[in-house]
């Protein structure tokens, strides 16, 4: 019985399917409030990073200017920014009730996110090889905690979107799934915005 409310026929598909139900509306408002909290969380991390940047116990530790290379960070930024764009396409198709295309663009978003994550892991491995680790200095701790928290958010987002794609594959489009997909999209944009700040504050300020 309950299911009927969620499976809206295509001729009555709402302009904003994600907030068409009371739960959808709550999710939308609640998730924005959650993101406000996440903003403060990352602000605290940035503050900690700036306080401990280049703070190392002795001269033989590498500093930010010697470690970071912008080309890699630039490629990562492009991957993540593009994935934000593709998630917008997914939402666009969700609003047009085009389930297959929504799934497709969500899949592309996940692939771009996975590419970003692979590059981040590559970067971490390289730094560890150079002696810059989580335990080597306060700078190392702060760097890995900030970037790692962002990376952890990316991993959570990837698992999340994969689960959504798989679970929705059998269920198709409904205002119930629309709310779920939209919440993920909000989250993914947020991760992207945080990365823009990381690129500026950590990498650009680091090498300048």
């Amino acid at each position, binding site marked *: 019985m309950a299911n009927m409310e969620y499976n809206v026929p295509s001729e009555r598909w709402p302009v904003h399917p994600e907030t068409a139900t*009371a739960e959808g509306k*709550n999710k939308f408002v609640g998730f924005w409030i959650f993101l406000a909290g996440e903003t403060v969380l990352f602000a*605290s991390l940035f503050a*900690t990073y700036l306080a401990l940047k280049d*703070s190392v116990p002795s001269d033989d530790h590498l500093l930010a200017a010697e470690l970071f290379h912008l080309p890699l960070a630039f490629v990562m930024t492009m991957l993540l920014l593009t994935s934000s764009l593709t998630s917008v396409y997914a939402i666009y198709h969700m609003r047009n009730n085009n389930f297959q295309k929504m799934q497709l663009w969500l899949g592309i978003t996940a692939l771009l996110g996975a590419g970003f994550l692979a590059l981040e892991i590559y970067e971490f491995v390289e730094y560890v090889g150079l002696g810059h680790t989580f*335990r080597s200095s306060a700078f190392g701790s702060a760097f890995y*905690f900030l970037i790692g928290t962002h990376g952890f958010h990316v991993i959570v987002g990837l698992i999340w979107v994969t*689960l959504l794609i798989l679970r929705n594959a059998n269920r198709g489009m409904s205002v119930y799934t629309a709310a*779920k997909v939209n919440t993920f999209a909000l989250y993914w944009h947020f991760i992207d915005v945080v990365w823009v700040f990381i690129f500026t504050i950590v990498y650009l300020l680091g090498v300048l």
Partner: protein
Amino acid sequence: MAQTSTQKKGVGSVIWEYLTTVDHKKIAILYLIAGGFFFALGGIEAMLIRIQLAVPNNDFLSAGLYNEMITMHGTTMIFLAAMPLLFAFMNAVVPLQIGARDLAFPFLNSMGVWLFILGGIFLNLSWFMGGAPDAGWTSYASLSIDSPGHGVNFYALGLQITGAGTLMTGINFATTIITMRAPGMTYMRMPLFTWTTFVAAILIVFAFPPLTIGVFLLMFDRMFGSNFFIVEAGGNTIIWEHLFWIFGHPEVYILILPAFGIFSEIFSVFARKRLFGYSAMVFATVLIGFFGFMVWAHHMFTVGLGPTANAIFAVATMAIAVPTGIKIFNWIATIWGGSIEFTTPMLYAIAFIPSFVMGGVTGIMQAAAPADYQYHDSYFIVAHFHYVIVGGVVFGLLAGLHYYWPIMFNTMLNEVLGKITFVLFVFGFHLTFLIQHFLGLWGMPRRVFTFLDGQGYNAANMISTIGAFFMAAGVIILLINIVMTLVKNERVGTDPWGDGRTLEWSLPLPAPYYNFAQVPLVRGLDAYWIEKKQGDGKIIPAESVGDFHMPNNSIIPLIMSLGLFIASFGALYFADGKDWAIDAVSGLDAKPWALPVLVIGLGITFVSMGVRSWKDDLGYYVTKEEIEKDLEELERGAK
């Protein structure tokens, strides 16, 4: 499918019901029981502290045990007693005040309570597992990194778990108040308790993440070998102080604002007057919340941030006195000329005004940065924050307990015993803490386990301890009152105080599990009062009787919380015996099982999240027929 409260159920099914419940009224009871338990625990710790300090050179508690006692007293009272007890009243009352059938996220609400309960249990297991945290409730990094054993690990992990629950609850209440208000309930028609809950919820959203990060830094340093606070490796312990107080100062407003809300309701009901200056009260609440984030460094005047920083934070701190003063005058003006009923809640509310003003005045004294150098770390500070927290928050909790008891349990606490508790508690409170101002000015430092004979502190400390026993006696009488009331179980009907003004009093007691058979129409501030005076005393429904949607119960919140609880044991012992670990634990035996426990615990949590995301949870419908049947029964009962 749906359970009505009249059905008889076995003990097992009642327990299962509470383990899986997503009903805000039942979650309120869980918060009240668990919060009350931790309040008693924190109170016992306080008594042990006062016994130790009763006479000079006492050896009732050892110095180390005393440190554990003050740490656990503070941590327990703030995180495990005051906040959860406020959440109990918020859960019990706010959805009813705004005419909602539940919170916006009932599932999250259940998670919040289980994270709090398990976090509290975890923190207190430290007493039996090698010693409690002993670096103070503020756990400054310079102390906490050097604290031997696992005590501070318990602090960090326990706070992380309860903190996550609190954050969820904050998001939940903020969303609920934005989206779930009944038709006609505009922002400027919300009862003051709803308003203060709203502002406190938003403060939680912004204040708890810095604590989360601060505690993560502490966890990583103590359990995973990082160097945030290890000065030899480039670390900086002041970061902890900033993060802690960026959380810690708003936290005191998270506690006091809902208490202000409870008092506002009580003043208005028992003076039988509309709250004086409603819009000024709302404005002052928002302003206090806003300023709350700009004053954290007044806890750090003696750190050496420099005269500019100190001056800015001093001025911002003094500015908070303005909206608080507005509130005080509005409460007085509300009572002024009212027809006052001296019920137990009203007595607490009246006692609150002078007590809280005294705490506020000493707060302004400390806001003057140069003077603060004299007060810092003395008993003057202890006296100040107990005046605002006991004289404000705890009075508010006790007032709220008596006032909202009928809504939560459908009976009334005994008024005579309530007044005896009031006299003992308020008298004991002033006896305990007034003298501590002077002890502080005479030079007695806080957080020191004893003092010497001949320093001039003997009489004052003895007086303070005697006062603590009066407070304890008051609490014991309250417990007797609660037990008696529960045993007698004399049910009361709608609007038991007779003068209820807001929607929560318009409901039949016990309220149906769906709260409102029909969503109410709100015609103004004090919606129920308006209907009493201008209508027929019945709330006008905003919809015809029909089907509506309710959420399903779920065990997943408890399982998710249990996963984090289990993972915490893995993290707790992870650094033992490792060569990269801090000195405090590197000498202990290595625990090879720590990592698997950590991974399994986190696995349980994340798999539960996945299951939650995978399964459709569409809830169920309460049918028109069932509502009509309930309404008929109610009609019959009224005749």
